[in-house]
């Protein structure tokens, strides 16, 4: 892979992840259905994970795992830190999504609808 191709790849990943984040944000901010909003949030999460992985990628990178006999070949390894952060972020994102969906179930129990306009006892 030469420099130009690497740059194209980098922009592609960057653009893809930012598009994903924006699409998710759009859904979270404009949709009226509670489940759609949460779908939007989980898309945003996915975009951010891709963004972080993209930051850590290097040209002709290899996975940061040492195989027997190649203990000193750190030169081309991709950055392991964003990967560790993404591992944490994925699990946290899942936890938050689960809590959100349980709240949706409870809201449905009380209101019998998922339309955000109908669930407006409190001021939004």
């Amino acid at each position, binding site marked *: 892979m030469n420099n130009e191709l690497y740059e194209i790849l980098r922009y592609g990943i960057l653009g893809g992840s930012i598009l994903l*984040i924006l699409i998710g944000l759009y859904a979270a901010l404009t949709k009226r259905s509670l489940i759609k909003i949460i779908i939007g949030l989980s898309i945003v999460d996915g975009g951010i994970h891709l963004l972080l992985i993209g930051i850590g990628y290097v040209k002709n990178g290899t996975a940061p795992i040492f195989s027997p006999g190649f203990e000193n070949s750190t030169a081309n390894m991709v950055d*392991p830190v964003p990967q560790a952060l993404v*591992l*944490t972020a994925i699990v946290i994102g899942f936890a938050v999504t*689960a809590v959100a969906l349980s709240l949706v179930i409870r809201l449905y129990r009380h209101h019998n609808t998922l339309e955000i306009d109908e669930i407006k006892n409190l001021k939004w």
Partner: protein
Amino acid sequence: MKKLIVILLLAVTGYFMVISFMDLGKDGPVVKNGVKDFYLDKTVSELKVANTITSIVVNFRGFDTLGEVTVLFLAATALGGILYKKRHHVGERSVLFPSSTIVKAGSKLLFPAIILLGVYVFVHGHLSPGGGFQGGTIIATGFLLMLLAYDNFSVSHKVLSYIESFAGIFFVLFGLSGMFMGKTFLENFMPVGNLNDLFSGGIIPIIYILVGFKVAAELTGLIYTVLNEKE
């Protein structure tokens, strides 16, 4: 009207995000030698762990992992609290997918294989890709498969809470025992062995196995709570 405002807002956000990451491809970061090289170096030379991500998740940034399993624990607890009803019927789950004999037989066949894969992944977390989170989630998907295929398949809440509590307690105790030996919290206090051996890396594989148990129990319990929720 509202959509227009949102789109404008998003355009601004997107613009700022693009410009703040764009230069990375051309010039690279302003600081060329970040913490990355240190991690790659020390993982092999001091911790004798083949998978750098494992060493970062469990050792260098082990405190994050402790916080993270706490987040999962809190989410599972919160789920039980939010869906709590005075009289709730445990065991009589409404059928999500009425499954055929083939699905049932296939799940029975796959279940041990999935569990075995999960255990393999978290036992070898320091040698190959994978580890506690990955293995734990794989085991949870195995239980999910069984829960979906069999209406009467049930997991004991008590056993799950024993597993998650004991795994969490041992995680913290392992961290604290490092302190009592005159080192710092979560510091390795066991012999590290040789690179690429199964018994290497000191406390790293032990902690990752505990994380695996905890994540598996937590996620299974979480799915089970939601699955038992009836309208």
